[in-house]
């Protein structure tokens, strides 16, 4: 199967894992749309929660969301109103990313053999930009850019009126 097809299967696993997470531990409404390859090389976001994985395939699963949505999710998970972007909020975003990636890993392991996950990394700020380019330089609009030569496969979600995306970068590992 071509890598694009495998990525679409993984995106389907991401959708299913995110849906399960929202039905169990976050308990907020959730709508989602079809996954698509992001044409825009710069993804504007406030918060990124990333987990990378290695194995037969390697890549990154990343949650892109607004600061407002990160606060909402952390408040719901901790059952307390949070208005400041504290370490608890970053920790909650990391856990959300970790739980999505962990569920995806379980499915990938069953299909492609043992895989390893990194610890989650959370990058937060306002008006950050993530850049995925094909070998040409891009001028960063804000303070942070993350470069990749491959496009993200994005799955868009809406919860509590806030849009967020879960992105996937995936490549076959060299033998």
């Amino acid at each position, binding site marked *: 199967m071509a890598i694009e097809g495998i990525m679409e299967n993984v995106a389907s696993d991401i959708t299913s894992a995110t849906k*399960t*997470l929202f039905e*169990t*531990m*976050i308990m907020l409404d959730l709508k989602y749309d079809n996954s698509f390859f992001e044409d825009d090389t710069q993804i504007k976001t406030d918060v990124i929660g990333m987990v990378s994985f290695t194995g037969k395939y390697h890549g990154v699963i990343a949650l892109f969301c607004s600061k407002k949505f990160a606060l909402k999710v*952390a408040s719901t*998970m*901790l*059952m307390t109103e949070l208005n400041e972007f504290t*370490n*608890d909020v970053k*920790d*909650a975003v*990391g*856990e959300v990313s*970790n*739980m999505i*990636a*962990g*569920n995806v*890993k*379980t499915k990938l*392991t*069953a299909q492609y053999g043992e895989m390893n*996950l990194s*610890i989650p990394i959370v990058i937060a700020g306002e008006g950050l930009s993530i850049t995925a380019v094909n070998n040409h330089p891009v001028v960063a609009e804000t303070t942070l850019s993350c470069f990749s030569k491959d496009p993200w496969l994005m799955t868009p979600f809406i919860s509590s009126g806030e849009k967020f995306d879960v992105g996937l970068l995936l490549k076959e590992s060299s033998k």
Partner: protein
Amino acid sequence: MPKVLIIDDSAVMRKIIQRNIQQSGLLVDEFVEAGDGREGLEKATANKMPNMTGIDFVKALRGSGQKSNIPIVMVTTEGGEAKIEEAKNSGANGYLTKPFTPDQLKSKLGNFLLVK
């Protein structure tokens, strides 16, 4: 006096688990938190220990000869059958995959804790 030791590297996850148990109606007198297996084992046995994974913690506690019969429920994102089997073989009494519902957590812990 039922005491629950919650070990997770995420402070948020420790709080979530504690909050869920408090709201579940299970009888717990005291919660103790640890950020990793080493700290957890030190708090459980009062011995100094090296860094360790969850599985290492289970094996070390079972082999420590101190409070080695404490029931252990592993809560992890690793949901594959091989991981569950490894945890059980190491001596874990229960296994729960994240994300979990409050009822799923209560059901696992209810095997070892009384209801208020």
